[in-house]
């Protein structure tokens, strides 16, 4: 799992200038634009695979206008994989791998 510092370093806008005064639509939009660029710069297979994690900073209604695939936020897969009774070794290995992958995606 990447640390917050690692993620920040990879952003196109690692520093966002603090806004002074009462926020207006324009000033919020300006910050939102930078956050959008940062979110989109993170590679993710969620959504259409082309907009990174852009769905974290824009409304789903807007996201749906730019992406043909819906962005489905990953659910918490839990601490351990759920293994059926009498599962074979191969099945346990597969479920463990899938759980590890789901956990990584959920944490990213």
């Amino acid at each position, binding site marked *: 799992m990447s640390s*917050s510092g690692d*993620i920040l370093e990879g*952003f196109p806008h690692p520093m*966002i200038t603090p806004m002074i005064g009462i926020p207006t*639509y324009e*000033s919020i939009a300006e910050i939102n634009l930078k956050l959008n660029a*940062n979110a989109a710069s993170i590679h993710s297979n969620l959504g259409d695979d082309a907009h990174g994690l852009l769905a974290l900073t824009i409304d789903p209604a*807007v996201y749906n206008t730019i992406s*043909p695939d819906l962005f489905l936020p990953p659910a918490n897969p839990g601490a351990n994989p759920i293994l059926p009774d009498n599962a074979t070794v191969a099945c346990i290995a597969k479920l463990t791998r899938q759980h590890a992958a789901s956990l990584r995606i959920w944490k990213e």
Partner: protein
Amino acid sequence: LSTDKTLKQQLLAAIDNIYYRSLRNRITGYANVTTLTILRHLCDTCGKISPTDLIDIDTRMKAPYDPSQPIELFFNQVDNAIELAAAANAAYTGPQIIACAYNTILQTGLFPGTCRDWRRCPAAQKIWPTFKVDFSLAHQEMRELQATTQGAGFHSANSALAANFQ
């Protein structure tokens, strides 16, 4: 999770917490609040777009397009409207955006072939990014064609013909 946390830290650092303090939990702070929730809250409380603005946005979105200008200006006009309408909690749906953009382009009467191809396109492919790509190419082709005909002297020949008729 970690990306959202990092984005949230950036947002919280950029805007004074007086404007979103109501989202703060007494025990957990902003731990369970997403970046998008804070952005929505800011738009709803400070960046409110009035109903009059909303009508203006709609009018600007449907404004006629001048084909002598780069088509990017038209796309930008639509993109701005999409963004502002979403911020006003009155987001356009995909089909609404496409219908509006298509009608504006159709009214120019300059892209009949691309308009016909677009009408025949399956509904699933009729999305705004595809629309932009298709009509950008059509606009580019139109400009190239104009440049070619002018370069070949047809433009001046037509002018001479028009002068003869007069």
